[in-house]
């Protein structure tokens, strides 16, 4: 059936399952997003804290990813079971966001060499229905889009200690520039063809998949392979090209959805976890 371009649930090989994204679901976080990709449910919270920058990079802020595979998702994740998968996903995100072209860390600097913002991006996997990499990266992009960093009105160095003055208005914040943030696209190899957005069943019957991180400007920021299979170089080239086109359309769709949500403003209906 895969050779004729159809899949078990009636999709074509390059079709995604329906996605729902909602931002600003957690009130205590500086930014949050919840993404549902059919059975996969991801919740991302971004917290901003003040930290000292690395000594060799005094003008840059910090960003840290942590993926928690909660035991809610599958019994296999209880205790330390999900730790390996969690580290793999957080490492892949860290590599994808490493380049300054994707996320400009200098925007997080407060006082060079003294204080900077540190973004703790915490990802909770609530339900696992296949295609975790894509769902996580889209949710992270949405949460970063929603993040509001408080504006620093003044910073003075008072005998070695830094004294910061934040603005009085709690709504006076800066937004982050996520136009170049990448989205991961998983291309799963089943038989002779590759499929996009595999379900959990499709993932188990594939030999390997290639995950590629694409930005809106069509830059590849990370490529890696998961699973135990290997690829012929020509297959790899074809997979990368397909991944690029898919990545661009996914990025565009997410951008459109986020802008639409923002335009609804105060009138937006909050569904949260009720839907």
């Amino acid at each position, binding site marked *: 059936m895969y050779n004729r371009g159809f899949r078990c649930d009636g999709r074509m090989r390059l079709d995604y399952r329906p996605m729902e994204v909602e931002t600003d679901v957690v009130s205590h976080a500086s930014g949050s997003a919840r993404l549902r990709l059919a059975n996969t449910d991801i919740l991302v919270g971004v917290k901003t804290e003040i930290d000292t920058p690395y*000594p060799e990079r005094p003008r840059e802020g910090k960003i840290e990813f942590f993926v928690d595979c909660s035991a809610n998702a599958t019994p296999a994740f209880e205790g330390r079971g999900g730790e390996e998968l969690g580290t793999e996903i957080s490492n892949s995100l860290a590599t994808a966001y*490493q380049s*300054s*072209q994707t996320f400009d860390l200098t925007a997080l600097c407060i006082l060079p060499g003294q204080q900077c913002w540190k973004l703790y991006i915490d990802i909770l996997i609530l339900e696992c229905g296949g295609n975790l990499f894509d769902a996580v990266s889209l949710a992270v992009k949405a949460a970063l889009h929603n993040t509001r960093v408080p504006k620093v009105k003044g910073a003075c160095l008072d005998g070695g200690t830094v004294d910061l003055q934040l603005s009085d208005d709690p709504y006076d914040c800066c937004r982050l520039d996520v136009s170049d943030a990448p989205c991961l696209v998983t291309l799963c190899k089943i038989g002779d063809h590759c499929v996009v957005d595999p379900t959990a069943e499709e993932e188990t019957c594939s030999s390997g998949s290639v995950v590629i991180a694409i930005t809106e400007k069509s830059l590849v920021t990370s490529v*890696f*392979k998961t699973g135990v299979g*290997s690829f012929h170089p020509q297959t790899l080239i074809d997979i990368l*090209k397909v991944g690029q086109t898919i990545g661009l359309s996914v990025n565009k769709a997410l951008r459109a959805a986020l802008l639409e949500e923002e335009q609804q403003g105060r009138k937006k209906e909050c569904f949260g976890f009720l839907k």
Partner: protein
Amino acid sequence: MAPDNRRLQGPESTFSYTLYIPNNRTDHNVVEQISSDERRKDGRKLNEQRRIYVKTGVVSQAKGSAYIEQSNTKVVCSVFDPREIPRKSGYSVNGELYCEFKFAPFSCIQWRSHQPDAFEKECSLILRRSLEPAVCRHEFPNFQVDVYALVLENDGSALAAAITCAALALADASVPMYDLVVAATLGVHGDKKFMDPTVEEESLCNILPPDGRSRNHGIITAAFSPAHQQMSEFAQSGAMDIDCATSSIQLLREACESIYLLSQQCLLKGVTKMLKKKQKEIKLDLSSDRIAC
């Protein structure tokens, strides 16, 4: 090294003194050197690899081991006998490969902690993913083979050297394999592609090129098994356009094919040495029998 689970890791308060050395940034020097006559700092052309030295059977206590030297990058890898998978109750039809990649604390310019950090954990994952397709895992069901790679000195492309070394160590340990895996690294900076970058070139490839050139930059590590013409791992970081990534596949493939010949020769040498040793032992046994009676 075993992770210390009982102690709370406090924040590190030390940093390298090299930050205070004036004119420490040598990045522009690296780029300037190239633009003069298309040769890098060590005299290599852009697509030239460094000389490689490999040897198997270096660790006596391990089932199989190998040592690789790529100019100043030194990696030693040991493989141990299959053992039961710890913390596992069910039966698995395929065996598992447990890989650990570690930088020795003195191997890099900055001190590295004893506990594996996120980068080392990622490299361990990449190492495992490169070796898994080549190992006949069905030959040791429900068992796990341990592969430990230790970087003694890091002068660039340590991960690729570790992958090549680990494959040789597995072969030396008589673990059934479909093919030897070899790996190579490519650094991209602007429009220049450095094959087998040194540690200076690698740090250059991690930062954005200055304005006026193409905005590509990054490091690609690829593992290849030439007998089956299969790419067992392709790990890219940085930011580049798709054409740069796809054209580098061909360059890496050619580099891997040349390393493959070396790997094969090394294995051949190791086997010949072992056979000669066995022959000598048999001769000695026969002569000692004559002396006894």
